[in-house]
């Protein structure tokens, strides 16, 4: 059996005018209150674990309905109130002028002294970042849609053609380098997709190995290198490729709690960004490896590494990797037989296994045998 491209389920629909309208809405609502002599406020959905839940239907993390009300006439709120309208106004101009800014730029652009005092509007970028997140939650739009770019990381390689503004290029024709994924991918158009699926790879070294072994060509795959935790740009790209272009998503990470967490984030979104699940998460993603079973199956016992921290049955435990694994066992999407088995095994064996440990067999092993076999036989975890 082979993995093939599916039918698209979403259409691309980013509209800057809608974002501007939402921002203006905040302004009008405040102005209205203050005209009536009322204490104006902004309602912001609360962040944090107490205000998220796992939606079994959409299979994503969703935001709950707890809100926190931010008043102007309240000494403890006033500054944040001011910061919120300040950033809202800044974003309105940004989107209106079709410019993008980084979080850092947004911070610097809005930092100045307040009314002749020594106090600044923002003392630290943490403050402006928080306000931007607040606006995302409040308005239900991605920060990318507000033209705030995230840090970029990751690149892709494979036979797809992308149109970015006036440029159009095929990402399998860029040598070994591949195409660097920008912070914002809202503006990209996919003009041609000649691959059957996308393989998301944790480490650049492994992605480069696969490119060197000509895996994308032979297997008709798109390689997406996340270079660690997937950046927002990459996650949005994965989401778009899956829903707009029907590409099955297969994730290939290290066999350790960090790798599984990367998979988990691609698949379900993170708790911090629960409000973005609809646009960033790809619950249909599948996991190819590394699994704990791989160790024995491929004779990798010598090249495992010890888990860090104290196991749950030892004094002081669980800490470190063990603690993370136990936390992951509680994730709703890992509450299935296959994943529970893997995670339990990791704790029992007390080891982790890296993608690159496959090089122990031979350099080409991963590209010629490991991945093709597992993917062809659909030995994938949910």
């Amino acid at each position, binding site marked *: 059996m082979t993995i093939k491209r599916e039918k698209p389920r979403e259409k691309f629909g980013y509209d800057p005018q809608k974002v501007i309208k939402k921002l203006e809405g905040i302004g009008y609502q405040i102005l209205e209150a203050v005209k009536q002599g009322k204490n104006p406020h902004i309602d912001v959905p609360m962040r944090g674990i107490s205000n998220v839940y796992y939606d079994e239907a959409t299979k994503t993390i969703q935001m709950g309905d707890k809100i926190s009300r931010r008043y102007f*006439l309240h000494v403890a709120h006033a500054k944040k109130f001011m910061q919120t309208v300040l950033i809202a106004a800044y974003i309105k101009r940004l989107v209106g002028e079709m410019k993008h800014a980084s979080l850092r730029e947004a911070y610097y652009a809005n930092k100045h002294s307040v009314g002749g005092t020594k106090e600044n509007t923002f003392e630290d970028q943490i403050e402006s970042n928080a306000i931007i997140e607040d606006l995302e939650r409040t308005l239900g739009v991605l920060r990318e849609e507000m033209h705030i770019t995230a840090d970029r990381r990751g690149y892709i390689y494979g036979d797809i053609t992308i149109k970015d503004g006036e440029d159009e290029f095929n990402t399998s024709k860029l040598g070994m380098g591949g195409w660097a994924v920008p912070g914002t991918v809202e503006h990209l158009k996919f003009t041609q997709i000649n691959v059957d699926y996308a393989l998301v790879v944790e480490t650049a070294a492994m992605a480069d190995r696969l490119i060197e072994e000509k895996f994308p060509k032979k297997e008709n795959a798109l390689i997406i290198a996340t270079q660690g935790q997937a950046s927002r740009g990459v996650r949005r790209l994965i989401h778009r490729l899956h829903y707009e272009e029907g590409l099955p998503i297969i994730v290939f990470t290290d066999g350790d709690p960090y790798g599984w967490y990367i998979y988990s984030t691609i698949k379900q979104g993170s708790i911090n960004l629960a409000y973005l699940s609809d646009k960033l998460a790809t619950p249909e993603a599948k996991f190819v490896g590394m699994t704990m079973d791989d160790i024995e199956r491929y004779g990798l016992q010598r090249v495992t590494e010890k888990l860090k921290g104290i196991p749950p049955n030892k004094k002081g435990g669980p800490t470190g990797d063990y603690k993370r694994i136990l936390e992951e066992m509680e994730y709703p999407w890992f509450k299935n037989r296959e994943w529970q088995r893997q995670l339990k095994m990791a704790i029992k064996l007390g080891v982790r296994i890296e993608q690159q440990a496959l090089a122990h067999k031979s350099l080409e092993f991963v590209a010629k045998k490991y991945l093709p076999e597992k993917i062809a036989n659909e030995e994938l975890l949910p």
Partner: protein
Amino acid sequence: MAKSEAKELFKEFKIQSVSEFFRRNAAMLGYTGKVRSFTTLIHEAVTNALDACEEAGILPYVKVEIEELGKEHYKLIVEDNGPGIPEKFISHVFGKMLAGTKAHRNIQSRGQQGIGISGAVMFAQMTSGKATRVITSTGGDEIIEAWVMIDVEKNEGKVVKKIKHPNPTGWRGTRIEMEVKDVRYIRSKQGPYWYLKLTAIANPHAHIELIEPDGKLIVFPRGSEEIPKPPEEMKPHPRGVITDDLFRMAKKTRRSTVKRFLVGEFSRISSQKVSEIVKYVAALRLINGVEEEQKKKQLYERLANGEVDIILKSFGKRGKQTLRQVEKIMEKEPSKLTWHEAEEIIEAFKYIKFLAPPTSGLRPIGEENIEKGLTNILNPEFVTSLTRSPKVYRGGIPFQVEVALAFGGSLSGFDILRYANRVPLLFDAGSCVTTSAVRSVDWKRYKVDNLEDAPMVVFVNVISVHVPYTSTGKQSIASEEEIYEEIRLALMEIGRRLKKYLSGKHRKLHQVKRRRTLEKYVDEVAEALSILTEKPKEEIKPYFLGLIEKKFEAPEVEAAEGEA
């Protein structure tokens, strides 16, 4: 096997004098280390002076002068305006150890028990070889100048030279001059300067002057005109004695029966109470005779609950017999009281409820006086003090706690001033209950965020006939739970007062600040809203200013909105 006969071994058997013993063990008296030894000398001399003045009802004027004669070689002069010392007592007061007016009495006292000043004389003599010069007059026709030395072997004072002077002006007081070596004057927190400063704080009725070796005069002026009443001798409380005390008191008393002895020489024992004691002793005898452990335990518990009459009744005839036997004890001559009977009475004391011991013998400094002392010497911005009512520890030893707090003003940094019976404690702070109690308080609650840097001084004075020191050095008070708790409670109370003070101070400022906080954001908010709504900023701004105006007309609106 034996190489020498026992008799031979005992050929050398000799008896030492007390003075000889302390000469060899001067550290026991506080003469240890060059700095501490100096402080101890001054402590002994000043304590003597203050006590003498108080007992005579005189407002003390104490002058301490230190001359440096050479390397680690000083002359120490302490002069007071006390009652003076009658000629025939001079050699005893300064030359004989374990002699004095207080040691044998149940009384709150400042100093060592009968060693103090003679120990100082001995230390001077040991290090410099010099006699101590005493100039004293009781205010009569003559002034006596006497040089006193100690005959260590015999534990006797010797006046090696004596001159009598006329006293035309009627001067009264005592001046002692002692030459000492192997000591060092340093202005540290454990030196004489600091000792006198703390003494001045706790004795605001005293005027104390210090002339330092470099000639600098430091005056700790009098802050109060009220002479503290001298401490009274107190009869011991039944809960404060052990068998040995009771037994020895019984041997010594001149009362004719045990009953009279108990009523007459203990506090809180009335004739009625003696009947109760009889019942309890009888009950304890009976219970002790019970064989079955379980039952015995039950009976003890019931006794502790006060069911003495029921218990006695439950033993029927034997109960009555025993009661009669015990009654007889009370009619005996006290000197015939046996150890076992004394033990029985002490045991009974533990089950009987007594009024708390009288505290008339305790002499707190008093809130007003402490505040005067602190204000006078430290010049703080805020001062408050609290004298708690007397309490009892270990069941029968009365004690009382006084605390005070000075904040701000000339203060910089945090300090704990520790006292026992208003004597400053300079050493071993780490093991002292006052230190641990002060540290245990969560000062943050009282708006003192960073204790170590706070401009604050905490004063603690523990008063008792029997202060439970941790060691023979008498520089730190043991952690008796009752004392610890009293200090804590007192500190929390003055902590609350401090908090109130600090809050009040900042209240007005706070209101103004809050208004300004809101106002300063108006411009920013209006500007941003103008961009969002595309209305002119000048139109938006007045709405906000009006809103703030309205808020501060009704100042408590904010609280209703849930501000913490």
